[in-house]
């Protein structure tokens, strides 16, 4: 029983909404697992991720992350997770390194210093190392305003991993990236996963990204409609074909 994420009967109804956006879903994710959370637009993926990452309140249900009850130990949960949001959440007025430094000091990794030159050696090393891994070593002191979409994504991932989270939530992390950037981002993420045994919780519309997941969970209109290892769900077909079949069937049913 090494579940790092446990979700039991999670319900979310937005204010002024007539129906539940998430309607009593339950699932669990093992430590070190690569978990893909799939579903059409509006299925409740981002809602679920927002609740799991403590930025949205739930209507009902029980959630435990990294051994902590989300209702009681919010702060501990926050310390254990890293989040790459659907929309880039970098400060465009700062440089890339300043964004990283902001995150590192906010998470208490290093004491706050107003200038890079005053930061401890250890921090500088870490930043250089991470920047090299994602190929940003020449741009790390440049303002975010000069960054392309792919560079921003990579920087966010670097930032999200600064505090060595046990679970990394990725909400459509490669949307808008060119194939090469996507490939780079993924090889970096898989590396981290192997090295640190980080659990990855992914939502994506690129189904080939989910082919290598340990488990796939498909939701539609707030309900889980399929769960299992990718080959159990897709059989001989590709995951994408199987996914389309499941979703089409759901639409026909309702």
């Amino acid at each position: 029983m090494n579940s790092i994420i446990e979700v039991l009967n999670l319900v979310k109804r937005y204010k002024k909404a007539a129906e539940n956006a998430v309607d009593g879903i339950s699932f669990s994710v093992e430590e070190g697992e690569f978990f893909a959370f799939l579903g059409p637009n509006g299925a409740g993926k981002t809602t679920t991720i927002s609740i799991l990452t403590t930025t949205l309140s739930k209507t009902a249900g029980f959630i435990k992350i990294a051994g902590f009850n989300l209702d009681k130990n919010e702060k501990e949960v926050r310390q254990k997770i890293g989040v790459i949001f659907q929309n880039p959440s970098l400060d465009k007025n700062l440089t890339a390194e300043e964004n990283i430094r902001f995150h590192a000091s906010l998470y208490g990794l290093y004491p706050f210093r107003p200038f890079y030159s005053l930061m401890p050696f250890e921090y500088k090393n870490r930043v250089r190392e991470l920047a090299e891994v994602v190929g940003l070593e020449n741009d790390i002191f440049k303002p975010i305003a000069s960054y392309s979409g792919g560079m921003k994504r990579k920087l966010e991932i670097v930032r999200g991993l600064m505090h060595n989270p046990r679970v990394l939530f990725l909400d459509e992390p490669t949307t808008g990236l060119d194939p090469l950037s996507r490939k780079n981002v993924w090889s970096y993420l898989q590396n981290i996963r192997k090295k640190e045994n980080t659990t990855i919780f992914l939502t994506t519309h690129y189904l080939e990204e989910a082919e290598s997941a340990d488990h796939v969970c498909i939701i539609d209109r707030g309900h889980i409609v399929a769960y299992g290892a990718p080959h159990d769900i897709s059989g001989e077909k590709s995951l994408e074909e199987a996914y389309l079949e499941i979703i089409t069937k759901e639409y026909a049913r309702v």
Partner: protein
Amino acid sequence: MREFNAILTIAFRDLTKLLRDKPRILAGLVFPVIFIGILGGSLSSNIGKSLGFDFLTFVFTGVFAQVFFQSSAAGVISLIQDRENDFSQELFVAPVSRHSIIFGKILGETLVSSVQIAGILIFGLILGVPFSAKIVFLLIVAGLSASFLGGAFGVMVLSNLSTQRTMAQIFPFVLFPQIFLSGVFAPLENFPPTLALLSKIAPLTYAVDLVRHAYYAGSPELSKVTAFGLTTDILIVLALFLVFLFAGTILFVRKERNR
């Protein structure tokens, strides 16, 4: 320690942003110039003589408080901007207390308004407002208090509004009446009863009065230019700050999460 670190981190981000935003620094200086120089100057030459104290100095001290109050109140509103360009997500998933996040923001905006201190003081000197070193020190302390109060007031307003657009529409209505009610341009004692009551409700009133206490301490004009005792001002400013900070944070966070 962790929380303190986070507060500094958040506060310094605002200062960094200000130092890169030259037009905003300039705008911060233009405002007092208009109010003290033009409005204060013209009122002073018309009605100043009959009051028994120097009207320009009176307006200067009022605007001094108002600038700090207004600058941080307006600055805290950048939290809405942060939300609209999704940076607030990064803030709110961080493992620090929500109060620290909001307080860091207020501190940051206070640092931002302090950048304007020097400019305003120099401008006062040019106009011939007399200063001693002690007065400058007291003015800075009182100005910072006004700034903290303004920031917390901003959070309170913010916690009830959701978009930058509504903010831009509503904010002038909660701020500008205060400028005229708080005695920036006229002593409070001659206010008619309704206005006098409203002026007692306006938080800025106590910040203005506090700054006047700082400037006029020990001078014979003190009783003419202040409406409340020094202790009253300090207690009320402190109480309002704490109420706005804690209630504002709770309301703001609840609105963010309970969607």
